[in-house]
């Protein structure tokens, strides 16, 4: 390593600041996913929450998972969502009435569950000795000091050996998903086949569109 040596405490502080930044963005954007009326904005906030959680994963040194988050969730799924929502042309009305109707009961149930979870998690996972200092999110990975793996190497080493069966089952799930997608979308009926007739398409103009 060359260049300027950043002092350790500064490094930890930067990590902490970044962690709080990303988690604030994550929390806010997840709230916005639920509360925003327009569904396109909601999906965009979902993308933002994915990106910020990828940032948190980067801070936790899970590069592979973080990249997968960005590639798969942001790159594929969220874009697909956006596509579908834009095609569906959803109306954004009468949401407030429903929200008001379900708000008290939903808040009660959610609040009870949240407090229970917080209580029990708080009692169980408090072994971090730095929990009151600024260094609370820093931990020393001793294995890193001896031998370094990238994360993808570590995953690759167990996926094909220890978890080979699980890998195969996941492959089967994918095969099933492909078959299912084909079943639910394919149309073998020849009569209603949507074929492109180029002549018809080219000879179409705005005057005769509405005549059926």
């Amino acid at each position, binding site marked *: 390593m060359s260049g300027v040596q950043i002092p350790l405490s500064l490094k930890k502080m930067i990590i902490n600041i970044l962690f709080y930044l990303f988690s604030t963005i994550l929390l806010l954007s997840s709230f916005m996913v639920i509360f925003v009326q327009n569904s396109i904005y909601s999906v965009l906030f979902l993308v933002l929450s994915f990106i910020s959680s990828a940032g948190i994963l980067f801070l936790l040194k899970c590069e592979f998972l973080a990249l997968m988050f960005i590639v798969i969730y942001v790159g594929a799924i969220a874009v697909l969502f956006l596509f579908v929502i834009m095609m569906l042309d959803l109306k954004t009305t009468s949401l407030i009435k429903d929200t008001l109707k379900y708000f008290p009961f939903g808040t009660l149930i959610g609040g009870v569950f949240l407090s229970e979870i917080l209580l*029990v998690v708080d*009692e169980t996972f408090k072994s971090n000795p730095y929990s009151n200092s600024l260094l609370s999110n820093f931990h020393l990975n001793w294995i890193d000091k001896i031998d370094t793996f990238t994360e993808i190497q570590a995953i690759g080493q167990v996926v094909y050996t220890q978890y080979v*069966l699980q890998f195969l*089952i996941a492959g089967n799930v994918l095969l*099933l*998903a492909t078959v*299912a997608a084909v079943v*639910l979308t394919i149309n073998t009926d020849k009569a209603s086949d949507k074929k492109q007739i180029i002549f018809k398409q080219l000879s179409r103009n705005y005057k005769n569109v509405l005549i059926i």
Partner: protein
Amino acid sequence: MRFETLLFKEIVILPELFLGISLVYLVLHCTFLAIQKNYPLIQRSILNLGILVLFFLCYLLLNDGLEVLELSSLNNTLINDYVSFSSKLVIGSLSIFCLLMIQPYIINQKINQFEYILLILFAVLGLFLLCSSNDLLTAYLAIELQSLAFYVLAAFKKNSTFSVDAGIKYFILGAFSSSLFLFGASLLYGITGTINFEEFKDLFLYFSSENLSHMTFFNVDIIKFALIFILISLFFKLAVAPFHTWAPDVYEGSPTASTFFFAVVPKLAIFVLLLRIFYYSFYGFFDSWRYFIVIAVVLSIIVGSFGGLEQRKLKSLLVYSSISHMGYALIAFNAGTFESIQMLFCYLIIYSFSGLCIWSIFLLTRLKTNYLQKHNKDLTDLVLLGKSNYMLAIFFTTVLFSVAGFPPMIGFLVKISVFLTAIESSMFFVALVSILCSVIGTFYYIRLIKIVYFEKVLVGKLYYPITKQSAILISLLFFFLLFLFVNPTLLYLFSYKFSLLVSTSI
């Protein structure tokens, strides 16, 4: 340094491997056949191929005889003991029967895509893996494989709004319950650092409610918390009472052959997973989780008995009947003794086989009316079945009596033993409520019998004749149930070894 992926010692997953590989072959085979000119109909051949594959699967399972070794393979993620062996055997034979019985339905309803059978085979693969899974990750993946197939089976009739609606409902609620399972599993992993059932057992074997307070390294409450999440998610899959609301809609809306399949086959496998988690791994927490199950039991028996009274459709009536039966099975699950586990499996096996019989009769009585595509029967569609098809009516009545728990039938024997286990473990209130509700639930079975025989109408309904194959099969099933009444020892012997699963923990 050598890494081997599949070694000879992993021979115990040979049946699953066979099923997976033959699935890939079936996909290729059928795709090449189906894209030929004129789109030939291959539903009959693929059905027979599917039955052949399942038959070989059962044969492989029976043939190797490795279940006596109790091998756990693939780094202890799969276990091949007697429980997994015999539940797989039951599931395999149930699905063979199921495929044989839905053949006329598939041909009549013009379900022409070959993928229908493939989806059923995928579901069977998931159930097989679920039966022998020995850690939470494998169990989760197997549940996903099985339920993903079920969602598509529910939504298979694309031009029917009901079917698509059922598929979407099933999908959303199934995804929700899977997420609960994952949440519970991640909590367990966060606390203990392992996901293996055997390691859970080693960690928590010597726990009991007295020495729980001596645990200082972590709060035990969080394990209960995680266990309740897993319990709720599996109850969703079983359609047990507080989590049953999806079941009538989904079962009603999906094609009858699919309903047949997921009403009869998967319950046993999910109960095996429940046993492995709650009896094998976390028996030390028995006192804390059994109260939640008691609530589910009482609720589901009440809902199943009273909800069924209002139903006019045969399918939803059978759904409510299945909800109450899951309640009775959970009584046995809840009792926590050797006998109770034996009775649980007796009950589930009898439930599955009599369900198979009833659903087959439901599929076979095809009305001669002008709306051919309709297969959603009202109760009155069975009116005077006793006049038009005498034998079928007798079969139907006898199996209904057995399901309702009338004294001479096998259903009575298993039901009374379930109540006995409840009383033996001092659950008097549950036993009282369930016996009373069982009397109420008998009403709708008897009403069915009244409709079949004693309705005051002059003209009954006419049905299409039954094929010879279906007739032989339904008689076989019927005589099997009769035989079990004459000689129930067979059933008790078969299920006795199930209870040895928990011999390490109790």
